[in-house]
């Protein structure tokens, strides 16, 4: 099935902020639109910005020598794209490519860091929301490691019927 072209507005990161915090953060937002198939960032590059996706899907991939790129996850409308800007070494640990026409709010990481230093309550709200996204992705990754839909094995519950 093809994804829904609209999607959740705002996303969990923006929804976690008060109206005043939201307003302050959005003064730093830049509306960006990219066509499908655009490489947004590459693994190892400096992570100096992040995006909140308004529409479209982005594939996160990792390069495997001799085997090309492997998509490890896709994220869509309402999601945070990029959290490596938040903590050292501030380099992308995955690459990102648009799967379809992409529209997002883009934020400059240095400007957001400065805003957070200036308004620590906003900073805490934002970091908490980003941490929630990181936690969600960690939990999702752990769940996928279980290979839940695979054939019953030692981790399954009982003999196969």
């Amino acid at each position, binding site marked *: 099935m093809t*994804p829904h072209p609209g999607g959740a507005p705002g996303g969990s990161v923006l929804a976690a902020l008060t109206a005043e915090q939201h307003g302050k953060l959005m003064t730093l937002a830049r509306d960006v639109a990219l066509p499908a198939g655009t490489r947004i960032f590459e693994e190892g590059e400096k992570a100096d910005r992040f995006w909140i996706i308004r529409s479209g899907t982005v594939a996160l991939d990792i390069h495997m020598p001799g085997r090309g790129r492997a998509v490890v996850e896709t994220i869509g409308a309402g999601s945070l794209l990029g959290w490596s800007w938040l903590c050292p070494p501030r380099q992308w640990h995955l690459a990102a490519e648009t799967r379809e026409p992409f529209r997002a709010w883009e934020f400059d990481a240095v400007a957001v860091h400065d805003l957070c230093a200036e308004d620590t309550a906003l900073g805490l709200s934002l970091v908490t929301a980003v941490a929630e996204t990181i936690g969600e992705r960690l939990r999702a990754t752990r769940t996928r490691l279980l290979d839940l839909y695979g*054939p019953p094995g030692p981790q399954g519950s009982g003999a196969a019927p």
Partner: protein
Amino acid sequence: MTPAPLSYRVVDRRDETHDTVTLVLEPGGDALDPFAPGQFAMLYAFGVGEIPVSVSRLGDGHRLTHTVRAVGAVSRALCGLRTGGWVGVRGPFGTTWDAAAAHGSDLLVIAGGIGLAPLRPLVDTVLAKPHAFGRLNVLAGARTPSDLLYTDEFPAWEKPFGAVTVDRPSGGWTGRVGVVTTLLHEARFTPSDTVAFVCGPEVMMRATARALIHQGVRPDRIQVSLERNMRCATGHCGHCQLGPLLLCRDGPVVGYDQAEPLLTVREL
């Protein structure tokens, strides 16, 4: 419900994936009572054994439709049946998806792997009476693109809202990659007025239910289909006991408000 198996003949079979087959069965004589979405039959592969298999489509007279994944001796034997083959059938057994609870509300139908099979009759029910329900969302997760079931039916689910995601992309897959809960971000529903129907591996159902509750769906409005070692299917042998429940009789469909405390107990 008939206690002894009745003979049903395979009148149609379809390979859904490399290890999953849909069988359409017709009674050779007496027929079982009609099934409801979520219920299951005990399918007996002659000389091999008997397993519970949910009904994966309703209607069409006394015909039964079941989707079986070959993972063990009995299921492999059932998947190996050809048109004209015979199978013993008991049923209908168990509780049903409570579609009436979703009248006027948004619906989330969330499937993992072959969990889509028991949910398909529910989706059919909703699509047949769209005005009785709110917005329908069908979200499905699979291991790989080649493990996706019922791909030819996706267009019908796409129109309300449907999306699929896989754990391991391959073969030029351009769709979503990730766990099924990530699709919730795009589904169209009002959490406070939504009924969710979830079927898949238990870990997936727990993670999904937690995500739904976090978004504001009430636990008593989340229905899950639980799987245990069902033998007699009549609530007598006790193999399928989960705390106070005998899942062949009191399940497989159970409200998450009832299931959650049982699923988090280490041993019962």
